[in-house]
């Protein structure tokens, strides 16, 4: 296993730049997730690490070796495809031994390794089955097995759970995590599903428009998003933004919105312009009778343990996550107020979060 480092990586298809000047370091034995909406360049990045696409410029290091221009077959990595890409004309055993045959292992060695991987993934009972007769979960396990048998330098996975139904997905998520702990392999995992990313990752890189916006641990990504996009993409629902037509000065700790003063964490950075946003997650807001932003209840979503109340204000719709005991009526006049100081100010010109006592 080894660490992966990409330096100033760029990929263009004609006029379209899929990946812009990206830098990343993925540590040895780390479960690293590339997260972003479709078309954000995460799959292209992964395919460049795999050698299925060649970078337009930049370097990729696998361990200490620069592999950017090497063929996929020369890189010693394993790739799990979204559609599994199991060879349909071979049975499970042959699928698993296919990569080993190329590396010239003896028959007995191949047999041992295949059985070992099969046992680990609990597919040893279906070794002689045809691929077409397998369920989605078993296909997924075989695809993982084919990656495992080679003991490669790194595992790359392109939305491997994307085609499974919800029940299987949860199960496979757990299995993947356990497998990663068991074998401790450097893993790069691409997904657009933030829940998957949150539950699997040691670290997450959020991408949009070909750029890596933030790469950090899941809790940091969630609580201290570096940009407005990260804040809105992560979380369900995403962060609320309230546009404020005022600059932010150093040491500022209150903010006047619609005549009401709100306490904000002490700011350490001056905003570039006068159009900024005030960001706060739905669970950090509460409904109150006075001293908040005025609005009326637009909708109530019942989520079992929590309720999401959408309040229509002069600043657009604001979502509030509350206890289920809180009962409101549609069109009822309410006020919304932060319940703690997990508040982030985003610079209107750069969309980046400003440094503060909270965002340190």
């Amino acid at each position, binding site marked *: 296993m080894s660490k992966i480092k990409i330096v100033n990586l760029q990929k263009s298809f004609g006029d379209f730049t899929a990946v812009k000047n990206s830098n990343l370091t993925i540590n040895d034995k780390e479960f690293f997730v590339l997260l972003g909406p479709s078309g954000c360049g995460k799959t292209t990045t992964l395919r460049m690490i795999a050698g299925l696409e060649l970078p337009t410029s930049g370097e990729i290091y696998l361990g200490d070796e620069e592999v950017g221009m090497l063929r996929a077959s020369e890189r010693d990595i394993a790739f799990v495809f979204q559609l599994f890409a199991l*060879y349909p004309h071979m049975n499970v055993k042959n699928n698993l031994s296919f990569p080993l045959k190329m590396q010239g292992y003896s028959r007995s060695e191949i047999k041992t390794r295949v059985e070992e991987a099969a046992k680990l993934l609990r597919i040893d009972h279906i070794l002689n089955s045809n691929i077409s007769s397998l369920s989605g979960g078993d296909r997924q396990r075989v695809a993982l097995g084919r990656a495992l048998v080679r003991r490669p330098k790194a595992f790359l996975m392109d939305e491997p759970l994307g085609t499974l139904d919800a029940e299987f997905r949860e199960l496979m998520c757990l299995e993947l995590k356990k497998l990663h702990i068991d074998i401790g392999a450097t893993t790069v995992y691409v997904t657009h599903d933030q829940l998957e990313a949150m539950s699997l990752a040691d670290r997450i890189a959020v991408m949009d428009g070909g750029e890596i916006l933030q790469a950090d641990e899941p809790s940091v990504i969630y609580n201290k998003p570096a940009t407005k996009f990260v804040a809105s993409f992560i979380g369900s629902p995403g962060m609320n933004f309230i546009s404020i037509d005022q600059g932010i000065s150093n040491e500022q700790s209150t903010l006047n919105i619609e005549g009401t003063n709100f306490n904000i964490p002490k700011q350490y950075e001056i905003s570039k312009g006068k159009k900024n946003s005030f960001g706060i997650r739905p669970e950090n807001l509460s409904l109150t009778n006075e001293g908040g932003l005025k609005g009326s209840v637009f909708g109530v979503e019942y989520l079992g343990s929590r309720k999401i109340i959408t309040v229509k204000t002069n600043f657009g719709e604001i979502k509030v996550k509350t206890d289920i005991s809180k009962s409101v009526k549609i069109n009822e006049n309410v006020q919304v107020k932060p319940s703690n100081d997990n508040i982030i100010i985003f610079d209107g010109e750069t969309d980046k979060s400003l440094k503060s006592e909270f965002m340190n």
Partner: protein
Amino acid sequence: MDTSRSYLEPSSFSKKLAATIIIVYTVITLIPISWMVMTSFKNVNSAISYPPEVLFEPSLEGYVNLFTNRSRQSQEYLDSLPAPETWYEELVRSREMVITGPSKFLGRYSNSMIIGFGSTFASVFLGALAAYAFSRFRVPLKDDLLFFILSTRMFPPIAVAVPIFIMYRKLGLGDTHLGMIILYTVVNLSLAVWLLKGFMDEIPKEYEEAAMIDGYSRLQAFFKVVLPQAMTGIAATAIFCMIFSWNEYAFAVLLTQFNAQTAPPFIPTIIGEGGLDWPAIGAGTTLFLLPVMIFTIILRKHLLRGITFGAVRK
């Protein structure tokens, strides 16, 4: 109203109608073929009798005549010979003839085999490589090239017979197996490329990518992963190519005489005493039919999947 069937399923009336049409069509198609097979088992006289005989005494004379050269001898000479050793000698002697040697049929037949299978293999192999390239690589002027390849089939191949004839004479390819294989491959290749490209497009490229990640080169991945999955398309293409090159008559007449002559131009020239030997011709065409029939039967499972491919993903 009958509600026991799905709305999409054809009614029993339309099923019966379809079956009737198919049966009638099959019977019409089979009449000349069964007449040909019947002729091959007639003797020379019953083959040309009028009105035609539907019921007749079967004879293997046509097949014996097909495979042998014979000469007529006087009764005294025949009497002086030792008794015939085999059933076919006996049959020939009963016509007051003796076998002078094997005919050219077997040689022509094996020429057909070599040229037919040779050009089929070449068309499918080259076609598969070209189709793969067109399907996977960014080929400059791809659409124009594909159209150009297709355009080679927009005129009947025989329209270029004269230039090909001259070219083949200059190149020394006339009346050679290689020449005929090249010619039929050229004619079949455009069909093969187009048919196979469709099949290659249907194969997800992840399979080769997986193989390449597993340590195989692109060419190895092509042979180990792509070709096995294109089997359906290859079978369908092979049948079409085989039927064309096996049945081709015009170029065979024009370009081959002795060395590489195929069966189609040879069979109609089988002459018996006093005109064409119809039972021998019937026997020749019946035997000529067999390889394509067997080839198609072996591959028919793929053929059926092949021509409906893309309609239903597996």
